[in-house]
């Protein structure tokens, strides 16, 4: 498929997953990700795959656990309240080191919240979400094309590191249509000798088990997981830096907020202001050193999120609170305008009311 086609972000994730070799999907309907579950229901049987609508988010993520443990490339998707329900299963999947892809097309919260876009699940996605010391790899696209490209990457990372990968999008990215192609969506398949496929010719059975009653053994498991996470932190951070070399003010945003922020940054550059944009693409592992490099020339940082301020904590940690950090956020499904961000850029750069 060399030509670009016009697709919704949700659908692009589905098509990219299939291109990346995903043949199993378990999910439960929820707005604003329902295009994805509907797309998989239609497309998977066409490619010899299997679609199942589960009775709950809880069941869906545990079906993913079973399928991933059985060696399949498997995906589930949901939106904020549904992803909360999946957290138990995600903790087990991380503990069992099972590769899978979990999509969260975020909406406003807390509680049932609303159905308009939000970015308030950052803490849940990047800090664990369920119980225990674990991390998902968390990837944040900011266009329909990236929803495709990063979905394929997500499956490959999941298999390579035997770790759940979360694609953290939002209702705007999921619903909007943009041209997209799937040229770069390739399956890099790995052997899975650990999978429970039935013993076959193996001498010994395989077991996927997350229980360790001996504390010494459980600590070993945790040390092993932490070593993997440390490796991920050095190997798999991804980010985009635009006009950061000489930036005196660095705007930091991800996902749909980074699109709005870029418009404001471009306008400021047109006006001769030294403003840059730093966009984390992996939210976990967070691109700490990349951000620390990008911020060197700056005297201030402006973090833009569709939340009350969550990623801002990682920004402050990455730069060790070495700069003044400002924040702009909207919640409840409300979006800031690029002019709102531009106005705040002006205030930060020219606090005395200069031009």
């Amino acid at each position: 498929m060399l030509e670009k086609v016009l697709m919704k972000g949700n659908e692009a994730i589905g098509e990219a997953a299939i291109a990346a070799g995903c043949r199993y999907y378990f999910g439960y309907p929820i707005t604003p990700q329902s295009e994805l579950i509907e797309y998989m229901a239609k497309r998977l049987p066409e490619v010899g795959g299997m679609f199942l609508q589960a009775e709950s988010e809880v069941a869906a993520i545990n079906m993913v656990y079973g399928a991933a443990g059985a060696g399949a490339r498997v995906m589930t998707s949901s939106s904020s309240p549904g992803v909360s329900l999946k957290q138990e299963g995600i903790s087990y999947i991380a503990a069992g080191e099972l590769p899978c892809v979990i999509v969260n097309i975020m909406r406003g919260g807390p509680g049932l919240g609303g159905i308009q876009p939000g970015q308030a699940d950052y803490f849940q996605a990047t800090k664990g979400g369920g119980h225990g010391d674990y991390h998902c790899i968390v990837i944040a696209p900011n266009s329909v094309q990236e929803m495709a490209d990063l979905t394929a990457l997500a499956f490959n990372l999941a298999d390579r590191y035997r770790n759940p990968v979360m694609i953290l999008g939002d209702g705007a990215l999921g619903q909007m249509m943009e041209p997209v192609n799937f040229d770069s969506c390739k399956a890099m398949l790995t052997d899975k000798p650990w999978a429970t496929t039935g013993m076959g010719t193996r001498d010994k059975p395989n077991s996927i088990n997350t229980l360790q009653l001996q504390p010494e053994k459980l600590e070993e498991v945790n040390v092993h997981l932490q070593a993997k996470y440390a490796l991920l932190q050095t190997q798999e951070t991804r980010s985009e830096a635009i006009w950061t070399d000489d930036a005196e003010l660095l705007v930091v945003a991800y996902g749909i907020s980074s699109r709005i922020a870029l418009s404001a940054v471009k306008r400021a550059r047109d006006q001769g202001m030294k403003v840059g944009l730093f966009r984390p693409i992996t939210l976990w592992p967070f691109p700490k050193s990349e951000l620390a490099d990008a911020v060197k020339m700056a005297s201030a940082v402006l973090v833009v999120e569709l939340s009350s301020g969550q990623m801002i904590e990682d920004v402050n940690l990455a730069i060790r609170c070495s700069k003044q950090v400002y924040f702009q956020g909207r919640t409840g499904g409300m979006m800031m305008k690029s002019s709102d961000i531009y106005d705040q850029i002006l205030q930060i750069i020219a606090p005395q009311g200069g031009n």
Partner: protein
Amino acid sequence: MSNKVFARPRALTDVATHYCPGCQHGIVHRLVAEVIDELDIQRKTIGVVPVGCSVLADQYFNVDCQQAAHGRAPAVATGIKRVHPDKVVFTYQGDGDIAAIGTAEIVHAAARGEKITTIFVNNAIYGMTGGQMAPTTLANQITATTPKGRQEDSAGSPIQLSEMLATLRGAKYIERVSVNSPAQMAKAKAAIKKAFETQLSGAGFAMVEVLATCPTNWGKTPVEATRWLNENMLPQFPLGVYKNANEV
């Protein structure tokens, strides 16, 4: 020259289990393993073990296993079976796992006619956590969380899961058995075999509910416990075939 007339099934590992004296999990494990051997499916079977006393059963069954979160075994088994429809997948679950925290998962696995086999061990109490009320605890039965006996007006009445699931079209074979005597064990084994054969035939969902004793948490000797089961559990949980859609 002597003939070996009794041996450990191939589908059981050669380890001592952690089960309490008089616990009937060991009997049920053996019956499942004997059936796996007789059907010659050890190398294509994947077990799903629960949270509860049988949480370590993946160490006892000599087949590939996954250990599921509490109550989620039927969902995990669904994921495995959908990936490997040519393999044999069974869940092994206790009463708290299957009829309290995991009620939704078992009901919907049965409703879908998921081609899995479920072995449900009902001993009317939470064993692993020390004897609290189960969804199958009898009326007025004393447990650690019903110190004055289970009061139906506040703590509800026992769930009869076999009867419930038998109403679903996707459930093709449902039987309740006990392992309280050699004769009952033989019947239980025959039921377990039918439940696996139901899966092998591709018919749909099958479950065998095994009434079992928990001497430790019932506060009884093993012999007293078998008597208590016969006198108290059988009236609430009658033995028998609740569904045999395909007359296997």
